[in-house]
């Protein structure tokens, strides 16, 4: 791989308003290499990708394709040059089928001007076979799993003769087995000379998969290195800048004599939750995991009052608990941080203060009988959480839109802190979060637990739960198939339990 680079970026700069997102970035991507791109949230990875995609124009610096300097005028030109981008939110049209999505924007037509589906199928099918698509290309995309959607997105890139495919957090919503399939495809693509820009916070994947790695920090490329000469520690230090935080966790031993906060018994909801029973103790971090579709999300939605169970009962502090809506759950002291934080947790166009205090409005009244907002108390509350979570924002009146992803996520979690719920449920708390922010979020969770709060953490990352949890429940096919405690919580045990049931059912 000593050829000339396919894509070469030199001294790229870009600012948005007062924020310098890129302060001089260099990057070379060789044909047929898997190039890892790592960096904290806000380090400039997404901005670089937007520039490469022709969506944003750089302020300074150059971009060369095949050694020829180009100035991208738009996304179409980037696509024509063989640059293809798969974003985390996979821009697929849900109600269209795979074929339509793959050909979106580049349909073949017959001489009569209508779309020639036969020719399209002929063109797509070989590519689909190559990436191992086994489902029908004519089923609506909305019915497909995240992994299948990824395959369609890759297919779309290949049909357009992409020479570079950029993948943003590809495994974020994939199970372990699906991820491995994706890695196989990525390696095969590289073998055929397609370059892959692999953006991920998951350093294990970067270390496994990539030929070379570039690290961004604070708008600069701080390291570009051959994978072979790189250690995980070096990589971490390049991302964080200085010594990497070492996670230390000592699980609290489970003691059945402690009073439970939440008691769930015989909960049933359709096929997705089947006779689930468990206790959650006060001050406990309970992990909930399982493959996508194992019923963990559905279970949590019931606990939070977003859905109603078919049967079964719950008690909260020994009192019957059957929330009819999330509002009931919140009033009884339950908080929820959704997985899709931007879409379901953040109020865009509103200030930091608004976002931090919105779950706690009644405390902001001047007096209970005078329902006016106490501006000073509101500002104080917002400032306190802001500094506790180390949210980086110009002021509490800054619109959340202007914050980096990691800071936005802190704000979504932060709104529950003043409320001091008895139970906080976090769905994938560190998805899409960089190493530093992840350690911070884990720190926050431990701090809350130390104050007596109970926490349920849903996570697909088998590595995350051992760092965080006192106890882990593994779900499969709507049932709890394994309970792990203390030292027995390991990545291998979790993975094993997740697949155990599925394997035996086959």
């Amino acid at each position, binding site marked *: 791989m000593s050829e000339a680079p396919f894509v070469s970026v030199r001294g790229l700069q870009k600012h948005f308003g007062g924020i310098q997102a890129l302060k001089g970035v260099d990057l070379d991507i060789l044909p047929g290499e898997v190039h890892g791109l790592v960096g904290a949230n806000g380090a400039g990875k997404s901005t670089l990708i937007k520039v490469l995609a022709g969506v944003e124009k750089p302020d300074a610096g150059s971009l060369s394709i095949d050694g020829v300097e180009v100035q991208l005028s738009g996304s179409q030109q980037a696509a024509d040059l063989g640059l293809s981008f798969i974003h985390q939110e996979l821009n697929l049209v849900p109600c269209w089928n795979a074929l339509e999505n793959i050909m979106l924007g580049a349909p073949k037509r017959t001489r009569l001007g209508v779309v020639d589906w036969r020719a399209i199928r002929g063109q797509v099918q070989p590519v689909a076979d190559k990436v191992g698509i086994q489902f029908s290309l004519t089923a609506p995309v909305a019915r497909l799993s995240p992994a299948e959607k990824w395959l369609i997105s890759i297919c779309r890139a290949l049909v357009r003769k992409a020479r570079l495919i950029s993948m943003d957090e590809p495994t974020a919503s994939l199970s372990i087995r699906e991820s491995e399939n994706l890695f196989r495809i990525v390696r095969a693509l590289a073998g055929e000379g397609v370059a892959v820009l692999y953006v991920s916070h998951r350093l294990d994947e970067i270390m496994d998969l990539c030929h070379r790695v570039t690290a961004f920090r604070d708008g600069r490329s701080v390291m570009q290195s051959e994978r072979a000469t790189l250690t995980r520690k070096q990589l971490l230090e390049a991302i964080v800048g200085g010594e990497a935080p070492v996670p230390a966790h000592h699980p609290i031993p489970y003691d059945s004599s402690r009073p439970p906060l939440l008691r769930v018994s015989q909960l049933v909801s359709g096929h997705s939750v089947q006779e689930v029973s468990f206790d959650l103790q006060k001050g406990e971090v309970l992990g909930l995991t399982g493959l996508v579709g194992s019923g963990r999300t559905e279970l949590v939605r019931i606990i939070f009052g977003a859905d109603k169970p078919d049967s079964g009962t719950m008690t909260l502090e020994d009192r019957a608990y059957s929330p009819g809506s999330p*509002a009931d759950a919140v009033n009884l002291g339950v908080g929820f941080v959704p997985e899709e934080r931007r879409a379901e947790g953040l109020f865009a166009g509103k200030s930091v203060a608004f976002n931090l205090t919105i779950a706690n*409005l009644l405390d902001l009244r001047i007096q209970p009988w005078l329902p006016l907002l106490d501006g000073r108390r509101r500002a104080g509350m917002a400032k306190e959480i802001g500094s506790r979570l180390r949210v980086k924002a110009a002021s509490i009146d800054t619109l959340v839109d202007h914050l980096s992803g990691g800071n936005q996520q802190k704000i979504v979690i932060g709104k529950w802190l003043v409320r001091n719920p008895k139970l906080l449920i976090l769905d994938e708390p560190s998805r899409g979060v960089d190493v530093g922010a992840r350690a911070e979020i884990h720190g926050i969770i431990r701090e809350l637990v130390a104050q007596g709060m109970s926490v349920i953490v849903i996570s697909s990352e088998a590595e995350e739960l051992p760092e965080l949890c006192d106890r882990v429940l593994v779900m499969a096919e709507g049932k709890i198939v394994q309970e792990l405690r203390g030292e027995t919580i390991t990545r291998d045990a979790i993975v094993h339990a997740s697949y155990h049931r599925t394997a035996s059912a086959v």
Partner: protein
Amino acid sequence: MPKPASKNRIALSLLAKYGTILGLFIMAGIFSVLAPNAFPTFGNFLNVLNQASLSMIIAGGLTVAVIVGELDLSIGYAASYAGVLVTGLIANQGLPVPLAIILVLGCGGLIGVVNGLIVTKARVNSVIATLGIGTVVVGLNFAYSTGAPIVAGVPDAFTQIALGRIWGVPNDVVIMALLVTALWILVERTPVGQSIQAVGANPVAARLCGIRVDRIKILGFIIAGVCASLTGILLASSLGSGTTGAGDSYLLAAFAAVFLGSATLRDGEFHILGTCIGVLIIAVGFNGLAIFGAATFYQYLFQGVILILAVGLSSLSRYFAEK
């Protein structure tokens, strides 16, 4: 190279934010120069405010509905119905004036409740739901009045509401000022107002924060309905009669004002203060047209163009805000 481009962008976003206010002053300036004896007088100023009052009340209510993220197309018909109903209840049924007003305001609230329930529980798009309910209201209006205006038997006690003055200021203006202040406080300075804004900004997130989204949306429709009724009542009071279609034209004026307002001071966000500016622009425009004796069709041209302009400005300012 990038510097002037971003300067342009800042200029454009400033224009989008303050353009409406600038436009208001330019318009007032032109009218003052062209009609120095008629336009810039205290009497005319009160006159403009008086004419703007009814629009402001109905547009203020509509603003709350749009902030929660819904459109209410029934407000014009609700205003017409309120005018007919209030005069009818007083003149034909012999109800005391205050009781009739309270009943009719309640009716407006009820229209809001029905709109809200259809939108939140039956999940009908608010444009369709309120268009349907608005048409039903027209039907009720005709059923009650048989289409004939209610003129006879409207007592002075009722007409004096709109015609009276407090310290020389028309009652309409006073009522409008009180109501607008109340709405502003509600939206900007109360916990409920924060919930209203949250529901409009992101209903899913609002629900997950424990806000009862459906109730807040219904509240938005209720406020829109009550305000529409109030406008209808004051209109009937100033006309001295209840006419079946009297309030219909307020729908478009209210929408134009609300969208003009969203392009004012904030980046495409609906807010009460902005709506006030929007109403003033339309009122000053109408006043100018009247002073120059422009034919009626100019009023329609003006209003149609201003509505499109308003929505265009609103989305432009949002566009520049995101840039």
